[in-house]
């Protein structure tokens, strides 16, 4: 039996009838059409599917779409406004914090979560904070530099 849900995604309400077993990440990608959020491991380990749910980083492969009913979700498509990148996005660009880019949307939200709880992390704290996100290109050095640069710029969003 399908359930009706309404989820605010990047500030816009989306209502749909979904199967209860539909995952939030599948809702974002296949129903709403926002494919910036990636599916990597599908087992809550790689972090490629990380989004903000009511302001907190969560793995959208381990959340039913029905659980997000009435909640606010931010995906990577909702970060820049009018072409203006956020401080974290800018830092990932400047520091070459990505290679293939597959892990980047999740990395941005894991970094956002870290800076939300610790605005001035040490490199070690950054590595610890990003431990739930895997970069298959192993480009971690520049990802850490990017988060440091964003923290120095005082911007997490």
């Amino acid at each position: 039996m399908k359930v009706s849900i309404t989820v605010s995604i990047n500030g816009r309400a989306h209502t749909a009838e979904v199967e209860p077993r539909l995952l939030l990440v599948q809702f974002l990608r296949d129903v709403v059409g926002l494919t910036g959020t990636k599916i990597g491991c599908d087992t809550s380990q790689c972090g490629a599917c990380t989004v903000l749910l009511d302001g907190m980083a969560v793995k959208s492969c381990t959340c039913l779409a029905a659980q997000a009913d009435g909640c606010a979700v931010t995906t990577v498509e909702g970060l820049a406004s009018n072409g203006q990148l956020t401080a974290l996005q800018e830092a990932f660009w400047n520091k070459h914090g990505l290679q293939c880019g597959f892990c980047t949307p999740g990395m941005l939200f894991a970094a956002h979560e870290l800076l939300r709880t610790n605005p001035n992390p040490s490199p070690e704290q950054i590595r610890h904070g990003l431990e739930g996100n895997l970069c298959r290109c192993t480009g971690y050095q520049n990802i850490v530099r990017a988060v440091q640069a964003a923290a120095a710029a005082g911007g997490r969003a």
Partner: protein
Amino acid sequence: MYAAEFNYLRASSLAEAHRLLAANPGAKLLAGGHSLIPLLKLRLAAPPAVIDIGRIAELRGIARRGDDLRIGALTTHAEIAASAEVRKSAAALAEAAAGVGDPAVRNRGTIGGNVAHADPASDLPTVLVALEGAVVAAGPKGERTIPAAEFFTGVMTTALRDHEIVAAVLVPMATRGVGSAYTKFAHPASRYAVVGAAALVAVNKGTCAEVRVAVGGLVPHARRASAVERALSGQPAEAASFAAAAARVRDDLGSDVLGDIFASAEYRAAMAPVYVKRALAAAAARAGLA
């Protein structure tokens, strides 16, 4: 991976959750989903209905109740790790919660779901057994309190009865001169405990007056390490005593040590004294600070 089909039901109160459980035989409860959803996706569980209890306000929050902290079942690992009250009064629990999975997992996973799931590689059961905590189970006719040592009965098996819901976890608050700690050998991908050790040590004039130790990760369910406890009781709170007592953990492990492709039973058993020793030393150091 797609779960088998199920009906999704949402309860807004404990009473409603009990009504839905009674009306839907075989239904599973969903809180943060970090134990149940992986099982559903692997189709290791295929319940006809899933009852979402994640929005029941009465199951949230951390409060003092007598000599215990009462931690509502829906309290997340992140909330427990960040709680000044838990860090002060049950340091091992805060430490274990801070090491569950990763930050995004800790934002969703709950203590109630964790204990009800009873994964042998889980961290919190080991701490609750060592601290002599308890699980508050709410049935249709009222609550009962189950000591942690009796709650975990096997691999993913608990003393919870049909139609009971984990409402809260009780943890005794540490008193002056008592410290606790949790250490683990974490699996590098999942952060689950390959070997986990929790210790509580009361230090009086440099001597270990009371010692409680539990191990997890390498046995079917968290259990006390009484040989270690006996070996350290009355001994000086120093590195040599911790190492000598920790070596006795082999006597506590029994013949049902778990092994898998990542770490054999022999390897885990060899690592257990290392983590027990570290937990004892950290707990004793905190006892000195308290």
